[in-house]
Protein backbone atom coordinates (compact mmCIF):
# COMPACT_ATOMS: atom_id res chain seq x y z
CA UNK A 1 0.00 0.00 0.00
CA UNK A 2 2.78 2.35 1.00
CA UNK A 3 4.58 1.59 -2.24
CA UNK A 4 1.60 2.90 -4.21
CA UNK A 5 1.56 6.33 -2.55
CA UNK A 6 5.18 6.99 -1.69
CA UNK A 7 8.51 6.63 -3.33
CA UNK A 8 11.89 6.46 -1.61
CA UNK A 9 13.25 8.99 -4.13
CA UNK A 10 10.68 11.62 -3.17
CA UNK A 11 12.94 13.21 -0.58
CA UNK A 12 15.62 13.80 -3.16
CA UNK A 13 13.41 15.55 -5.68
CA UNK A 14 13.70 19.08 -4.32
CA UNK A 15 17.48 18.86 -4.23
CA UNK A 16 17.34 17.39 -7.73
CA UNK A 17 15.36 20.36 -9.09
CA UNK A 18 17.68 22.76 -7.29
CA UNK A 19 20.74 21.08 -8.80
CA UNK A 20 22.11 20.26 -5.36
CA UNK A 21 22.87 16.58 -5.96
CA UNK A 22 26.21 15.15 -7.00
CA UNK A 23 26.47 14.22 -10.68
CA UNK A 24 26.16 10.53 -9.89
CA UNK A 25 23.08 11.00 -7.70
CA UNK A 26 21.54 13.42 -10.18
CA UNK A 27 21.80 10.87 -12.98
CA UNK A 28 20.41 8.15 -10.73
CA UNK A 29 17.36 10.28 -9.81
CA UNK A 30 16.83 11.37 -13.41
CA UNK A 31 16.80 7.79 -14.56
CA UNK A 32 14.35 6.89 -11.79
CA UNK A 33 12.00 9.76 -12.63
CA UNK A 34 11.73 8.62 -16.23
CA UNK A 35 9.98 5.45 -15.06
CA UNK A 36 8.21 6.60 -11.84
CA UNK A 37 4.83 8.32 -12.20
CA UNK A 38 4.71 9.32 -8.55
CA UNK A 39 7.97 11.22 -8.86
CA UNK A 40 6.90 12.76 -12.16
CA UNK A 41 3.76 14.11 -10.48
CA UNK A 42 5.74 15.32 -7.49
CA UNK A 43 8.19 17.17 -9.74
CA UNK A 44 5.29 18.86 -11.51
CA UNK A 45 3.83 19.92 -8.17
CA UNK A 46 7.12 21.32 -6.94
CA UNK A 47 7.58 23.20 -10.18
CA UNK A 48 4.19 24.80 -9.63
CA UNK A 49 5.74 26.65 -6.70
CA UNK A 50 8.64 27.83 -8.84
CA UNK A 51 6.28 29.11 -11.52
CA UNK A 52 4.12 30.83 -8.93
CA UNK A 53 7.03 32.57 -7.21
CA UNK A 54 8.56 33.72 -10.49
CA UNK A 55 5.40 35.72 -11.25
CA UNK A 56 6.62 38.34 -8.82
CA UNK A 57 7.91 41.54 -10.42
CA UNK A 58 10.35 43.41 -8.22
CA UNK A 59 9.41 46.87 -6.99
CA UNK A 60 11.91 49.71 -7.16
CA UNK A 61 13.41 51.09 -3.98
CA UNK A 62 11.56 54.35 -3.24
CA UNK A 63 13.38 57.40 -4.61
CA UNK A 64 15.79 58.93 -2.15
CA UNK A 65 15.78 55.99 0.27
CA UNK A 66 19.38 54.94 -0.44
CA UNK A 67 20.52 58.55 0.00
CA UNK A 68 18.55 58.76 3.24
CA UNK A 69 20.33 55.62 4.50
CA UNK A 70 23.73 57.00 3.50
CA UNK A 71 22.97 60.27 5.29
CA UNK A 72 21.89 58.57 8.51
CA UNK A 73 24.96 56.36 8.43
CA UNK A 74 27.32 59.27 7.83
CA UNK A 75 25.66 61.30 10.59
CA UNK A 76 25.87 58.63 13.23
CA UNK A 77 28.87 56.50 12.28
CA UNK A 78 30.81 58.16 9.50
CA UNK A 79 33.92 58.87 11.56
CA UNK A 80 34.25 56.65 14.61
CA UNK A 81 37.94 57.58 15.01
CA UNK A 82 37.14 61.29 15.23
CA UNK A 83 34.30 60.54 17.62
CA UNK A 84 36.76 58.68 19.84
CA UNK A 85 39.25 61.57 19.63
CA UNK A 86 36.57 64.08 20.59
CA UNK A 87 35.30 61.93 23.46
CA UNK A 88 38.85 61.40 24.71
CA UNK A 89 39.63 65.13 24.49
CA UNK A 90 36.50 66.02 26.46
CA UNK A 91 37.26 63.41 29.11
CA UNK A 92 40.89 64.53 29.33
CA UNK A 93 40.02 68.22 29.63
CA UNK A 94 37.46 67.49 32.37
CA UNK A 95 40.04 65.43 34.25
CA UNK A 96 42.74 68.09 33.86
CA UNK A 97 40.37 70.84 35.05
CA UNK A 98 39.38 68.71 38.01
CA UNK A 99 42.99 67.96 38.94
CA UNK A 100 43.98 71.60 38.46
CA UNK A 101 41.08 72.61 40.67
CA UNK A 102 42.24 70.30 43.44
CA UNK A 103 45.86 71.48 43.21
CA UNK A 104 44.89 75.15 43.16
CA UNK A 105 42.41 74.90 46.01
CA UNK A 106 44.96 73.01 48.14
CA UNK A 107 47.58 75.68 47.43
CA UNK A 108 45.23 78.51 48.29
CA UNK A 109 43.99 76.77 51.41
CA UNK A 110 47.55 76.20 52.64
CA UNK A 111 48.48 79.81 51.88
CA UNK A 112 45.40 81.20 53.59
CA UNK A 113 45.63 79.05 56.73
CA UNK A 114 49.35 79.80 57.19
CA UNK A 115 48.88 83.54 57.02
CA UNK A 116 45.79 83.52 59.22
CA UNK A 117 47.54 81.57 61.98
CA UNK A 118 50.57 83.81 61.77
CA UNK A 119 48.52 86.95 61.88
CA UNK A 120 46.29 85.53 64.57
CA UNK A 121 49.17 84.30 66.67
CA UNK A 122 51.01 87.52 66.20
CA UNK A 123 47.97 89.51 67.13
CA UNK A 124 47.16 87.49 70.21
CA UNK A 125 50.74 87.32 71.25
CA UNK A 126 51.07 91.05 70.85
CA UNK A 127 47.81 91.58 72.76
CA UNK A 128 48.84 89.47 75.73
CA UNK A 129 52.29 90.84 75.72
CA UNK A 130 50.76 94.26 75.91
CA UNK A 131 52.19 95.40 72.62
CA UNK A 132 48.78 95.61 71.19
CA UNK A 133 47.57 99.12 70.80
CA UNK A 134 43.88 99.48 71.36
Amino acid at each position, binding site marked *: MKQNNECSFEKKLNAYI*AGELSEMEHNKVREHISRCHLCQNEIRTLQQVDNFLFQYTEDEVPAGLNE*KILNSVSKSHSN*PFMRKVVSFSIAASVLISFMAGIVLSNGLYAENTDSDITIGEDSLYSYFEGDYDV
Partner: protein
Amino acid sequence: MKLSMNNYKFEVLLQNESKKLFNYLLKILRNKEDAEDILQETFIAFHKKMDSVKETSYKSYLFRTAYHKALNLIKKRNAKNKLVTNYNEMEHFEDKQPKNNEQQNELVKDALSQLKPEEALLMELQFYQKMNYKQIAETLETTQSAVDSKLVRAKKKLIKIINEQKKMQENNLSIV
Protein backbone atom coordinates in the same frame (compact mmCIF):
# COMPACT_ATOMS: atom_id res chain seq x y z
CA MET B 1 42.10 54.92 4.63
CA LYS B 2 40.30 51.84 5.97
CA LEU B 3 37.35 54.03 6.86
CA SER B 4 36.94 55.48 3.35
CA MET B 5 37.37 51.99 1.85
CA ASN B 6 34.59 50.73 4.12
CA ASN B 7 32.39 53.65 3.14
CA TYR B 8 32.99 52.89 -0.52
CA LYS B 9 32.18 49.20 -0.02
CA PHE B 10 29.09 50.17 1.94
CA GLU B 11 27.85 52.43 -0.84
CA VAL B 12 28.40 49.73 -3.45
CA LEU B 13 26.61 47.18 -1.29
CA LEU B 14 23.73 49.57 -0.70
CA GLN B 15 23.34 50.17 -4.44
CA ASN B 16 23.52 46.44 -5.25
CA GLU B 17 21.50 44.92 -2.44
CA SER B 18 18.93 47.48 -1.31
CA LYS B 19 16.43 46.58 -4.05
CA LYS B 20 16.63 42.86 -3.28
CA LEU B 21 16.32 43.42 0.44
CA PHE B 22 13.51 45.92 -0.02
CA ASN B 23 11.53 43.43 -2.12
CA TYR B 24 12.15 40.66 0.38
CA LEU B 25 10.83 42.90 3.17
CA LEU B 26 7.86 43.93 1.05
CA LYS B 27 6.95 40.29 0.51
CA ILE B 28 6.94 39.38 4.15
CA LEU B 29 5.79 42.65 5.72
CA ARG B 30 3.34 43.66 2.97
CA ASN B 31 3.70 47.28 3.95
CA LYS B 32 5.90 49.78 2.12
CA GLU B 33 6.61 52.07 5.08
CA ASP B 34 7.58 49.16 7.32
CA ALA B 35 9.83 47.74 4.58
CA GLU B 36 11.54 51.14 4.22
CA ASP B 37 12.09 51.45 7.99
CA ILE B 38 13.49 47.94 8.37
CA LEU B 39 15.70 48.37 5.31
CA GLN B 40 17.16 51.52 6.83
CA GLU B 41 17.66 49.90 10.24
CA THR B 42 19.29 46.88 8.60
CA PHE B 43 21.88 48.90 6.71
CA ILE B 44 22.66 51.07 9.75
CA ALA B 45 23.15 47.96 11.91
CA PHE B 46 25.31 46.44 9.20
CA HIS B 47 27.48 49.56 8.96
CA LYS B 48 28.16 49.40 12.70
CA LYS B 49 29.34 45.78 12.47
CA MET B 50 30.93 45.96 9.02
CA ASP B 51 34.48 45.55 10.33
CA SER B 52 33.68 42.27 12.04
CA VAL B 53 31.82 40.73 9.06
CA LYS B 54 33.70 38.78 6.38
CA GLU B 55 33.31 40.38 2.99
CA THR B 56 32.01 37.12 1.52
CA SER B 57 29.26 37.08 4.16
CA TYR B 58 27.98 40.64 3.66
CA LYS B 59 24.84 39.50 1.81
CA SER B 60 24.09 36.71 4.29
CA TYR B 61 24.55 39.12 7.17
CA LEU B 62 22.18 41.66 5.60
CA PHE B 63 19.45 39.11 4.99
CA ARG B 64 19.83 37.62 8.48
CA THR B 65 19.62 41.07 10.07
CA ALA B 66 16.64 42.07 7.94
CA TYR B 67 14.93 38.79 8.82
CA HIS B 68 15.37 39.27 12.58
CA LYS B 69 14.25 42.88 12.47
CA ALA B 70 11.22 42.01 10.34
CA LEU B 71 10.40 39.14 12.68
CA ASN B 72 10.41 41.48 15.68
CA LEU B 73 8.10 43.86 13.85
CA ILE B 74 5.73 41.04 12.86
CA LYS B 75 5.58 39.87 16.48
CA LYS B 76 4.82 43.40 17.68
CA ARG B 77 2.24 43.84 14.93
CA ASN B 78 0.59 40.50 15.74
CA ALA B 79 0.32 41.47 19.38
CA LYS B 80 -1.43 44.71 18.38
CA ASN B 81 -3.62 43.07 15.74
CA LYS B 82 -5.15 40.63 18.20
CA LEU B 83 -7.77 43.29 18.83
CA VAL B 84 -8.60 43.75 15.15
CA THR B 85 -11.34 41.51 13.79
CA ASN B 86 -10.87 39.34 10.74
CA TYR B 87 -13.96 40.97 9.28
CA ASN B 88 -12.23 44.34 9.08
CA GLU B 89 -9.16 42.79 7.49
CA MET B 90 -11.28 41.11 4.84
CA GLU B 91 -13.04 44.36 4.07
CA HIS B 92 -9.71 46.15 3.79
CA PHE B 93 -8.38 43.46 1.46
CA GLU B 94 -11.41 43.58 -0.80
CA ASP B 95 -11.15 47.35 -1.07
CA LYS B 96 -7.68 47.05 -2.49
CA GLN B 97 -8.27 44.53 -5.27
CA PRO B 98 -5.11 44.95 -7.38
CA LYS B 99 -4.65 44.21 -11.07
CA ASN B 100 -2.11 42.59 -13.44
CA ASN B 101 1.49 42.68 -12.15
CA GLU B 102 0.34 44.26 -8.96
CA GLN B 103 -2.26 41.55 -8.55
CA GLN B 104 0.29 38.81 -9.15
CA ASN B 105 2.68 40.45 -6.69
CA GLU B 106 -0.10 40.64 -4.13
CA LEU B 107 -0.84 36.93 -4.57
CA VAL B 108 2.81 36.05 -4.02
CA LYS B 109 3.07 38.39 -1.02
CA ASP B 110 -0.14 36.98 0.38
CA ALA B 111 1.08 33.41 -0.01
CA LEU B 112 4.55 34.09 1.44
CA SER B 113 3.11 36.00 4.37
CA GLN B 114 1.14 32.90 5.31
CA LEU B 115 4.35 30.94 5.74
CA LYS B 116 6.48 31.14 8.87
CA PRO B 117 8.98 34.00 8.49
CA GLU B 118 11.86 31.52 8.36
CA GLU B 119 10.16 29.57 5.57
CA ALA B 120 9.52 32.78 3.65
CA LEU B 121 13.18 33.67 4.02
CA LEU B 122 14.18 30.25 2.69
CA MET B 123 12.02 30.80 -0.37
CA GLU B 124 13.44 34.26 -0.83
CA LEU B 125 17.02 33.09 -0.65
CA GLN B 126 16.53 30.17 -3.01
CA PHE B 127 14.19 31.63 -5.61
CA TYR B 128 14.93 35.33 -5.70
CA GLN B 129 18.51 35.52 -4.42
CA LYS B 130 19.56 32.36 -6.28
CA MET B 131 21.53 31.09 -3.31
CA ASN B 132 22.55 27.44 -3.19
CA TYR B 133 21.98 25.20 -0.15
CA LYS B 134 25.44 25.97 1.22
CA GLN B 135 24.88 29.74 1.09
CA ILE B 136 21.39 29.43 2.56
CA ALA B 137 22.75 27.24 5.36
CA GLU B 138 25.37 29.89 6.11
CA THR B 139 22.78 32.67 6.14
CA LEU B 140 20.43 30.81 8.46
CA GLU B 141 23.28 29.30 10.48
CA THR B 142 22.04 25.76 9.92
CA THR B 143 22.97 22.61 7.96
CA GLN B 144 22.39 21.91 4.29
CA SER B 145 20.19 18.89 5.02
CA ALA B 146 18.05 21.06 7.32
CA VAL B 147 17.75 23.60 4.51
CA ASP B 148 16.55 20.89 2.13
CA SER B 149 13.92 19.46 4.46
CA LYS B 150 12.66 22.92 5.49
CA LEU B 151 12.43 23.96 1.85
CA VAL B 152 10.38 20.87 1.01
CA ARG B 153 8.05 21.58 3.93
CA ALA B 154 7.69 25.24 2.93
CA LYS B 155 6.97 24.30 -0.69
CA LYS B 156 4.26 21.85 0.35
CA LYS B 157 2.65 24.56 2.43
CA LEU B 158 2.86 26.98 -0.46
CA ILE B 159 1.21 24.49 -2.80
CA LYS B 160 -1.72 24.29 -0.39
CA ILE B 161 -1.92 28.08 -0.20
CA ILE B 162 -1.74 28.45 -4.00
CA ASN B 163 -4.54 25.94 -4.43
CA GLU B 164 -6.65 27.79 -1.86
CA GLN B 165 -6.00 31.07 -3.67
CA LYS B 166 -7.11 29.46 -6.93
CA LYS B 167 -10.31 28.20 -5.32
CA MET B 168 -11.03 31.67 -3.91
CA GLN B 169 -10.44 33.29 -7.30
CA GLU B 170 -12.77 30.78 -8.98
CA ASN B 171 -15.42 31.43 -6.34
CA ASN B 172 -15.09 35.18 -6.81
CA LEU B 173 -15.43 34.79 -10.58
CA SER B 174 -18.53 32.64 -10.23
CA ILE B 175 -20.09 35.27 -7.92
CA VAL B 176 -19.36 38.07 -10.43
